[in-house]
């Protein structure tokens, strides 16, 4: 706009300074704090000096090319990675302040607090009802009324109640892939977890089912903390609050998702999200 008044040198400077001043809102409490985590499969050094604070009620996306360590990382968060022979770790992962690698730490308890959803929907070959009631039954809940309630709440939480409420006794295998994946999410919700880990939960789904799962993730973060591994850049950009970019077992960049996709700090991040390699 026209400015008939002279402008002073200082004002010109003031207009320039915003380039240097990022504004951030107050951070939420940390759920999972990973400190200097290293992991080896035999002699293969798969995770290198990972430092990653994961916060409450946020969606944290983990992106990176195949073999970068992102699946290994989330499988470490519930110690599932220990099922692989010859795995060795160093460093610590604090879940709610306690190191999950401590000798006395109960893996079973950890896994009731941390649910997981996998790439391929993997319902049990049982009825929809029994799929959801499976976890609570293992934890000793036998009361039919209580189980009914858990099943309904979990299915509602996974945004699939209306689609299945009239056929809870049919086999979960009879559902579509997208529905099966939401059944798996409901199954994870039934044990009332604190954190949900998702390993490429939509990579086997069509666009409509993908959209439903993405909407669900957005709703779930109100009550849970979610960590999602995804190969879909647009998905990470759409649904996550924070994004960590993994490459060759290292965290190259971890920041607000908007920052990562609009103006990443590291050239390697830029190259990856722009499709220049990987």
């Amino acid at each position, binding site marked *: 706009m026209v400015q008939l008044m*002279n402008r002073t040198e200082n004002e*010109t400077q003031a207009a320039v300074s915003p380039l240097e001043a990022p504004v951030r809102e107050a951070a939420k409490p940390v759920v999972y704090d990973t400190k200097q985590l290293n992991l080896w499969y035999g002699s293969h050094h798969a995770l290198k000096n990972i430092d990653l604070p994961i916060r409450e009620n946020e969606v944290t996306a983990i992106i990176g090319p195949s073999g970068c360590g992102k699946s290994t990382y989330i499988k470490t968060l519930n110690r599932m990675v220990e099922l692989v022979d010859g795995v060795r770790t160093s460093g610590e992962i604090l879940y709610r302040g306690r190191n999950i690698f401590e000798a006395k730490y109960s893996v079973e308890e950890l896994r009731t607090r941390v649910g997981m959803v996998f790439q391929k929907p993997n319902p049990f070959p049982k009825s929809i009802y029994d799929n959801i009631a499976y976890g609570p039954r293992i934890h000793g809940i036998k009361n039919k009324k209580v189980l009914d309630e858990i099943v309904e709440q979990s299915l509602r939480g996974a945004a699939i109640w209306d689609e299945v409420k009239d056929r809870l006794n049919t086999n979960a295998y009879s559902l579509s892939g997208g529905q099966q994946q939401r059944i798996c999410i409901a199954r994870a919700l039934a044990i009332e977890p604190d954190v949900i880990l998702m390993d490429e939960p939509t990579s086997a789904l069509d666009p409509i089912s993908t959209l439903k799962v993405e909407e669900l993730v957005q709703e779930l973060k109100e009550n849970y903390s979610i960590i999602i591994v995804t190969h879909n850049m647009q998905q990470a950009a759409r649904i996550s609050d924070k994004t960590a970019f993994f490459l060759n077992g290292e965290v190259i960049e971890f920041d607000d998702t908007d920052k990562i996709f609009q*103006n990443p700090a590291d050239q390697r991040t*830029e190259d990856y*999200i722009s*499709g*220049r390699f990987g």
Partner: protein
Amino acid sequence: MRKVGNVRKTFESELEELKGTLLRMVDLAERQLGDSMSALQTQNLTLANAVKQNDAEINALDDEINQKVIQLITQQQPVATDLRKIIVALKISTDMERIGDLAVNIAKSTLHIGDEPLIKPIVDIPKMADAVRVMLRKAFDAYDLEDIDLAFELAKEDDAIDEAYGRLIRELMGYMHRNPDHVNQITQLAFICRHLERVGDHVTNMAENIIFMVKGKTLNLNE
């Protein structure tokens, strides 16, 4: 580290092509401005009419850029620098299209003055126009070379344009009192000053967009 496949290469060459089209637009806008000023100085009505007609060329380039941007966004779903380059091309092309319109407005004022003798040889308006064209050429280089220092300089130069505008308007108001028979001509000259001042603002917008493209940060240099 970098392994670039054909799809990515095609995208990069399309981004280059987009840049080339935009640079052509900047160049054309600058030429139109120059022609509109020559037409005024020499009261060459044929040239003024040519400026009006040539505007279609800038508008066509603006359309071409709009189409290309939509195509690239749908096909490539760009992020980060790629996305900023594309969005900035879209925004700068709007500014260049407006500069083209302002050159046409100057030509129309020249046609309104017609062959009525000028009340005095005009010197300061062409000087202001030269300064604006220098800004445009600098903006061309700043965009081409992604040079943000050059972009920051443009904001300062626009301050000088704004100052010249204020001075010229006051001077023309004075003439109006002394030459009541030439109010039409003086008003047209005042309009021309205003159009040139607006060109400076559009170039400043372009400078802001270049900084955004390179740095990913938004600032307002027009304040």
